[in-house]
């Protein structure tokens, strides 16, 4: 895979992550490859005079890529924080590809901090109601929210929308529909969010 292809995939992952109501499977291998490229490029650019045209253009591209990576990771972190209790409960069942190892550490630490902070508050309450019910605080991603999608492939089977409607998705076609209908296709990068 060329660096150019990695960048294109990362950009797609970024756009999908920005638009999906839930946390998507992590793409940390893309991030890592890209960051290595960036570091290497930075070292090369340092050799050039700052007035050299190549240096200016390279530095600008590096800024753009760093923005992309930062914005991507930031978006994911913000979803992890927002749905931390839900993720702690479901991360095991969803398989290992949802969180990167670093994100998994972050989720654990962040959730522990948040829960203990809320528990301190409850300690001040009378014993009878001071129990902390994790489920009460859980905020789940809204999977029924409507999203705009474009398909990268012909989807073989018709997809059910609600109980009675069906939608056939061809390559290149665009739809607005509930996220839950295309959830698996988004996760497997067969459709992109717009």
């Amino acid at each position, binding site marked *: 895979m060329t660096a150019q292809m990695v960048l294109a995939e990362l950009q797609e992952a970024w756009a999908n992550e920005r638009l999906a109501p839930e946390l998507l499977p992590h793409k940390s291998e893309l991030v890592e490859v890209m960051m290595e490229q960036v570091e290497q490029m930075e070292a090369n650019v340092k050799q050039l005079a700052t007035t050299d045209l190549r240096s200016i253009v390279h530095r600008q591209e590096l*800024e753009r890529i760093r923005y992309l990576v930062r914005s991507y990771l930031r978006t994911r972190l913000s979803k992890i924080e927002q749905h931390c209790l839900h993720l702690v409960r479901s991360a095991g069942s969803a398989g290992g590809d949802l969180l990167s190892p670093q994100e998994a550490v*972050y989720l654990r630490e962040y959730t522990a*901090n948040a829960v203990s*902070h*809320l528990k301190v*508050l409850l300690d001040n*309450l009378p014993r009878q109601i001071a129990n902390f019910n994790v489920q*009460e605080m859980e905020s789940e991603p809204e999977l029924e929210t409507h999203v705009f999608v474009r398909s990268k492939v012909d989807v073989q089977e018709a997809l059910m929308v609600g109980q009675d409607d069906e939608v056939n998705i061809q390559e290149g076609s665009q739809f607005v529909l509930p996220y839950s209908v295309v959830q698996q296709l988004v996760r497997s990068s067969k459709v992109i969010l717009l």
Partner: protein
Amino acid sequence: MREMSQFIEEAMSSTYHPVTNNFMMGVRCRQAALERNKRCLLAYQWNRMERLRKMRWEFGSILPPDIKSNLSDAEVGWFNKYSKCLATYMKSIGGQNGLNITQDMKPPKDLYIEVRCLTDYGKLELEDGEVIVLYKNSQHLMPRSHCEHLIRQGILEQVD
């Protein structure tokens, strides 16, 4: 908080000495009211946490004094823990030096932007080793990546 707690105590004790016949109804109502109050409390606290989280991204790991003075000790503690947790994460990604993801909040435009300094800040070292002195009303052409934090902290402002 303390008032609320006291109120709950009173409410609890009053249900424990009912004279009326519908003892259970009273207890249930009280219980529901208490649970509701508890949820309000938690929601309130949760919202404050959310705002503190945003501030970590805006101001960095050190809170401005006027904001800090409005926080409880527990909140200051939580903020510091959050800050540390985020720092650990940022150190663990993006190679040797980590990756500060609180930078570049907006898509990059020009590499350099024109800024005006709003306070006497002092010396600032740029990426390439150049040192510039920021004093009130001085104007500089600076790398965008360097200015973002200072702009958010109100030390610099962008000149159009």
